[in-house]
């Protein structure tokens, strides 16, 4: 059985790309193949012009990664000692990297935790220490496997802000593998979706969202005179005019979601509501988020593979 097969993609310098996919899709395998921790049977992996399979050492000088989050650090060492050690075995001395390490400590809001053993930190801070250790190597390419896993809202936000700042200031290429669609949508410009070991989508986040953008509206109405009769009448009329519609009674109001096939259908909808003397309380257009787009793509792939 192949964990991944026929995978091909390229990432530009300074891009922040998300690698998405359900559990077991092959995201981590792809990352580990690039890092040389898993050897692919065939194919070519180039990083910054270096063949990763043939020239492992030069390739590793260009890459760093957080693979198992907080477990990637020594819990008995302090934040600073961890950063210094992992940078050291990458060829960056403490003396040369000191200023940058301090910058990372501030960027990731680890100042108070600088000289505390990692085992005494919360999981959010442990995660940040792991990220700091990877970033301290100053490599042009960084992989972050599930960087926000298990983080609370505040920690996740701060980490995302730090990554965005880093990309803007240093033009580092960052590849994030995550299930946290909110974090991905917030930080990444592009998403590569993997399912069953193959790439099923590779597009910018706005393009991906527009693919699944629909003219779906959620409308809340109350009847005119004789409300019970009015609401049922409205429901009947709307159901007659539109095929893709679902209704829900909310207190004394009727809420329905309708998908419009054409842009002009909104006028038809307004006409139907006016004819029934409906009072429109609220009308909102449903936004497609990355999670929905992801589920749609993966769902399609699964059904194709299942068939």
């Amino acid at each position, binding site marked *: 059985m192949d964990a991944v097969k026929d995978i091909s993609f390229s990432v530009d310098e300074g891009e922040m790309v998300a690698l998405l996919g359900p559990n077991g899709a092959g995201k981590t395998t792809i990352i580990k193949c690039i890092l040389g921790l898993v050897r692919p049977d065939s194919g070519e992996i180039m990083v910054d012009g270096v063949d990763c399979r043939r020239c492992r050492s030069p390739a*590793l000088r260009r890459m*760093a990664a957080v693979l198992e989050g907080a477990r990637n650090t020594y819990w008995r060492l302090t934040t600073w000692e961890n950063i210094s050690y992992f940078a050291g075995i990458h060829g960056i001395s403490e003396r040369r990297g000191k200023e940058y390490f301090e910058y990372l400590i501030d960027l990731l809001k680890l100042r108070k935790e600088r000289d505390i053993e990692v085992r005494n930190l919360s999981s959010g801070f442990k995660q940040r220490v792991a990220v700091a250790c990877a970033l301290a190597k100053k490599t042009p390419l960084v992989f972050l496997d599930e960087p926000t896993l298990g983080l609370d809202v505040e920690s996740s936000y701060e980490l995302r802000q730090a990554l965005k700042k880093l990309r803007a200031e240093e033009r580092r290429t960052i590849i994030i593998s995550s299930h946290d669609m909110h974090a991905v949508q917030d930080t990444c410009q592009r998403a590569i979706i993997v399912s069953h070991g193959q790439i099923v989508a590779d597009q910018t986040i706005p393009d991906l969202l527009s693919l699944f953008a629909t003219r779906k509206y959620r409308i809340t109405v109350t009847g005119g005179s004789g409300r019970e009769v009015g609401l049922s009448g409205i429901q009947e009329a709307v159901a007659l005019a539109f095929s893709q519609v679902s209704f829900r009674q909310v207190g004394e109001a009727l809420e329905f979601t309708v998908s419009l096939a054409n842009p002009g259908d909104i006028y038809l909808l307004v006409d139907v509501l006016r004819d029934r003397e409906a009072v429109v309380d609220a009308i909102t257009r449903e936004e497609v988020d990355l999670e929905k787009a992801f589920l749609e793509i993966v769902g399609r792939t699964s059904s194709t593979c299942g068939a």
Partner: protein
Amino acid sequence: MWGIALKATWKQNFHMMGRYLFNTLSSFVTMYIVFALLFYGTKSIGAATLNLGDTLEGVFTGYVTWMLAIMGCTDLAYTITNEAQSGTLEQLCLSPLGYWQILLFNQSFHLLTNVLVIGLITVSMSLTTGLVIHLDFVSVVPVVLALYLQSLGLGLVLAGLALIYKRIQAFFQVVQFALIGIFFIPLDAFPGARYLPLAEGRKVLQQVLVGGIRIWQARWTDLGPMFGATALYISVGVACFTMAENRARSRGLLGQY
């Protein structure tokens, strides 16, 4: 880059020694007790297996050699098992130097601290008991170092197995018994056994300690196979470790425990 990585590794090990202070002190106390027994005349500790005579010098050198041989053999694999267990193994494999070099840097720290502690204990023992070890260091050190490097070669093979199988502690005991067996082999009766790890080195050490010869007085037919075996076992160790690492990467085993 080597210098930076070596310094970083030593520093990390030093910090770890401090953080696991109880364990560190316990190992030093154990060493102290063993050397105290050596100085107070118990000559059956480990050294007897090496058959290096019953002088204090012989017993002392025998024990140190045996201790370093076992350390060289098992330490690397223990390190790998611990790193895999704690989740840092893959990070170390991402060093551009290659993981085996990081392992050897670790090992060099362990060797240095052990030699330092042995030295300190020996000096303090000499001061308290009035017994002085008269060793021909110029002759003994190269031989002990050669024996250590041979065991390190075996250690790299075991470390390679640990990369793939992770838990191989039970196998260590088999290796220790095998080493004892090798020490007992009479090389005159089985000349082919001189190419086994540690065998020829033990013979040269015996000549130095019991026979009282200087290293340059030893026959080249003894020194040659000893240094040859050292080069051979280190090369075989590195080759086996590299092969095991490649195999572990092919199977995606580095991140597993």
